Every structure is written in structure tokens, then in C-alpha cells.
């Protein structure tokens, strides 16, 4: 479809601007880590402590090891979008029907 290129450029611009989202310094409600819990409550709920590090993400909190906060965030945005586009494209190719125009 014509014009899709323009939307891809728009995504790139958003990725570059994404560090604006770092200016909000707090944590989203209900997304605190274990340390924040011990500060807030004085204890960490048992089950929460047990399950919270079930999975170790390669790029935790969009911060790329070895990169600064801002550049890591931008790179994360590009990596994440690339992964999503590849996965969605793949699923779409499998599920979608070829319609001739």
C-alpha cells in the first residue's frame, strides 16, 4: 500500500522521541520491584518475592547493558518494534489470504 513508508518513518521518529517517556521518574502503580516494596511496606509479600524474578529479560526495563539510559531506551524501541514487525509479518503471512488487487 502506498504511504506505508511514511508510517514507518513516523514509527522511527517516535522511537527517537521515546526517551521523553523517561522524564516521568516514578514507577507505574502496581509495577514496583522487590526493593521498592521493602521501602514502601517494610516487607516483601512472600509469594511476590518468590515469583517476581521468574523470568530474566535480556533487556530489563528497556535499558541496554553498556549503553546510557537514553540511547538504550531508543535502541530498545527499535529492537522491540523490529521484533514485533517480524513476528506480526510472519503470523500475517501464515494466516492472511493472498488477495489479488
Amino acid at each position, binding site marked *: 500500500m502506498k504511504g506505508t513508508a511514511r508510517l514507518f518513518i513516523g514509527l522511527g521518529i517516535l522511537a527517537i522521541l521515546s526517551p521523553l517517556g523517561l522524564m516521568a521518574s516514578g*514507577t507505574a502503580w502496581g509495577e514496583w520491584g522487590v526493593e521498592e516494596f521493602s521501602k514502601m511496606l517494610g516487607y516483601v509479600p512472600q509469594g511476590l518475592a518468590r515469583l*517476581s524474578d521468574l523470568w530474566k*529479560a535480556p533487556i530489563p526495563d528497556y535499558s541496554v547493558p553498556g549503553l546510557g539510559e537514553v540511547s538504550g531506551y531508543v535502541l530498545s524501541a527499535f529492537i522491540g518494534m523490529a521484533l*514485533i514487525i517480524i513476528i506480526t509479518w510472519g503470523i500475517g503471512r501464515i494466516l492472511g489470504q493472498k488477495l489479488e488487487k
Partner: protein
Amino acid sequence: MHIPDGYLSPSTCAVMYTAAAPFWYVATKKMKKELSTRMVPLMSIFAAFSFVIMMFNIPVPDGTTAHAVGGTLMAIVLGPWAATLGVSIALMVQAIFFGDGGILAFGANCFNMAIVLPFVGYAVYRIISANAPPGSARHWLGGAIGSYVGINTASLCAAIEFGIQPVLFHTSNGTPLYCPYGLSQAIPAMMLAHLTVAGIAEMAVTGGVIAFLQKTMPVVMTLRLGREART
């Protein structure tokens, strides 16, 4: 609104996976029937858009943060079932690669943000934009209002999932095992964040992008014409 692992009991997580599963199943069936390969690039773009827009954290007056989701926008352009798949893919990448939202809690997060949010948002949009000709202001207006209702309904669901934890799951002396905050704390906190900043951001993003598409790429806004009767 990305519930991390540990906040919901494993049994709650299982219930939420079970609740989401039929929607994923129907969504893939629907895609098989309705998705033309020409729509695939747009689906990728909107899923990626949802991902990146969620990175724009906005401060909430109580010191926490919140963000838009973009699920209603995707539902309006590509249909609610496509939005379910697209937002689920974005949430999966966030959970697996960035640790944003839990793996056990993935079903709950998809239920809230990839199912409740786009379907509610889309339903409200359809009511407001019913019979409006292409290009009408009722499309972006309906999208804006729908997205506001959608994200707030989703956040209410998340608040309920958080809030029932301390009642249902605690040690013998009453100490919470998972999310320690009950409904009386979770609901006001989640609603404050989403009725104010996140809801407004979601409205601006949805209304703004629809108005932009109507003006510059009207064909994108009419992709689903003729399909709507079947959804």
C-alpha cells in the same frame, strides 16, 4: 498497566490465561478468514505503534506513571480481532525481552489491554460513528471517546485483579502473599492514573492518528468498509 509476575497468584494467572485463550483462538480464525496479505504491513505498523507508544510514560499526580496503549486505534483501523492479536504480540515482546509485564501474568495483561481495551473502545466508537460517512469528524471523535472508555475499562479490570489478591491469598496471620493492596486502594489508584493522564493521552493519540489518516491516507480508514457488517 503491565502486571509483573508475583502480583497475581498462580491460580489467578491460570484463570486469566483461560479467559484470554478463546479470544486468541477466535482472533486467529478471524484473521485466517478476513486478513488479506495487503493488510499485514499495516497490522505490523499498528502493533509496533502500540509498543512504542507504551514507552512514553507520563507522570501521574500521585507520583506513579501511566501510558497510552493504542489498542482502540488498531481496532478501528483493522478490526477488534486484529487488535487482540497485534497488542498481544506487543505485550509478548515486552514481557519476554524487556521484562515489562510478567510471563505468568501475560494472560491477565492480554485480557486487560489486548481484549477488554480494544473491544470496549471499538464498541463505543461504533455507536458514535454509526452511519457517519468516511471522513466525518464522528470517526476521530468516536475513536477518541471510545479509546478513553476502553483504556479505563481495562485499567478497572487490572485494578480488580490486583485488588482481590490480599483477600484471597494470604498467610494464616493475614499477611498478603501477592499484591498487598486491596480493591479500596487498587481501584482509586488505577483509575486516577487512567481517568486523568493515560486516558487523555489515549484520546489524543487515537483521535489524532485517525484525523491524520482521514486527511492524508483516507484509504486506510476505509479498509474495513463492507467487512464491518460481519464483525
